[in-house]
């Protein structure tokens, strides 16, 4: 568990014109249970909303979900916007059904890492995996 004094703040949302709300609710629940402070901007969030929320809350990471296939178009330029906003070092994670069609995951992952994301998750990833990665990436001792 994350200690109170070092609680990490996460901005969570579903990008673009995507309205998939269920996973978003579950992620909010799972990350909150795991001890993170979750700033959930919900579905249909623009890049600007992610960045503004991160700046306003002094967040440690932005977690982007995309379930509907337009992730490739919607996510492009997010890292550059973070840089422009002066939070260029913020951790960016992305996950979901990121592209149209069943494509080779390694190629998709490479594409999103090249866009400036620190981690990308394939369809069907359980929340715990991202929780473990977050703790590791921020230097917390692995729980398990």
């Amino acid at each position: 568990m994350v200690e109170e004094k070092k609680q990490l703040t996460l901005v969570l949302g579903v990008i673009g014109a995507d309205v998939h709300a269920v996973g978003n609710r579950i992620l909010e629940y799972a990350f909150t249970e795991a001890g993170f402070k979750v700033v959930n901007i919900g579905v249909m969030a623009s890049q600007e909303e992610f960045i503004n929320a991160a700046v306003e809350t002094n967040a440690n990471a932005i977690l982007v979900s995309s379930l509907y296939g337009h992730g490739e178009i919607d996510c492009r330029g997010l890292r550059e916007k973070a840089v422009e906003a002066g939070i260029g070092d913020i951790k960016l994670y992305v996950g979901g059904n990121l592209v149209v069609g069943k494509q080779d995951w390694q190629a998709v992952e490479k594409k999103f890492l090249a866009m400036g994301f620190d981690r990308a998750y394939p369809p069907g990833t359980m929340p715990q995996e991202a929780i473990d990665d977050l703790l590791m990436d921020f230097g917390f001792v692995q729980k398990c």
Partner: protein
Amino acid sequence: MQLTNKRLEWDQFLEIRREILNSWPTGQEVDLEEAIAYQSKIPDNRRFAKKLETAKQEGITLAQPRAGVALVNEHIELLRYLETEGEADLLPTTIDSYTRQNRYNEAQAGIDESRSVGRSMLNGFPAVNHGVVACRQVVESVISPVQVRHGTPDARLLTEISLAGGFTAYEGGGISYNIPYAKDVPLERSIRDWQYADRLVGYYEERGISINREPFGPLTGTLVPPCISHSIAILEALLAAEQGVKSLTLGYGQCGNLTQDVAAIRSLEELADEYLSRFGYQDTVVTTVFHQWMGGFPQDESKAFGVISWGAATAALAKATKVIVKTPHEAMGIPTKEANASGIKATKQILNMLKDQPLMQSQELTEEKELIKAETRAILEKLLEFGEGDIAVGTVRGFQAGVIDVPFAPSRYNAGKLLPARDYYGAVRLLDFGNLPFGEDIKEIHREKIAQRGKTEGREPSFQMVIDDIYAIGKGMLVGKVR
């Protein structure tokens, strides 16, 4: 302008129409008289409503996929493949998510990029950007009737272009395409905008052209109890009928328990007939659509076929007029055309094998049907009371009060207080009723069934149980039991 469930005045309709057709260049391609002349040449065997009516009379279930890509030729190729290789009875044109939000500039960027990279960058067919002529190319390239399927709160321009473009069926509604598909669109607005769409369909009907209308049944696709989707389907049926719609297909998304699912489809049709005739809409034809499981799917394609096949079997046994088919790629997103066709073929095999097999009547089925009817009537009667007899007004007030509430919806105009969970047998019940206007007798049935499950699993029903249920089918089970 006060929202009310009254047929839109023609002058008022035309005034809105001018504005709508000017909102994007392709709107100028729509000429109503020319469109009616074009539609009137489409023969009965290529008309959606006709094919559904015949299927209903024959007691068979038709199979329809979802499908749509960014570019016209590729979309035509896809539909042809689903018709010939996939043996689809009815075809779709699924609209992309930018168009659904009226973001036509972004849809255009998606079209342009799809052209340059040689694959679809959009999750559907951007019909507004492509315009009337392209839509006609699509419907003319196949033999089966084609329906537009989308998720658009303000679909007025899309409706104009779709109908002028020769599509003979059209999905959506002011509630079912708002609450699960938007976060910030007031219900007054989406209901009014869909009154426009329905009025246009009603006008085509007056001119002798039958256009099928289908409220979107499964809503959020996540453990939606039948009474919730039934209430909304009937509300939208009443709203559409008032605008002159005559062919209605009401939908329900599979929950997974056979008894509950069959009871749901059968009660849906009976309830719809009951309410339509009560409000004086005598000449509407109601058919039903059963959606194969709309929640999370297993990644493994063989397991996905299992889910698809169970949906096909349930649709056939329930005698739904059509079934909307999933694909083995569901867990990964948009399917390839091959995967899409394989889902239809698996479905058709089962539909054919079960078409002459009646389901045995049982006490449980009768009880389940009566329960769904009692729940749905409780909600609808409360909405009528809230609206002082006006169902449009009642709907808006009812959502505000949470007496109608959709689980897991993104809209802030939805109370979001319901918590559904499965009972021991996998039927979807309510763990938290929110503000649903149920009597103690109904509530007690739910409490008992959920308590029974909790006891067998040795845990108190909670949000964790709901999460377990949401993931269960994806992990190879129906009920999210503790490991």
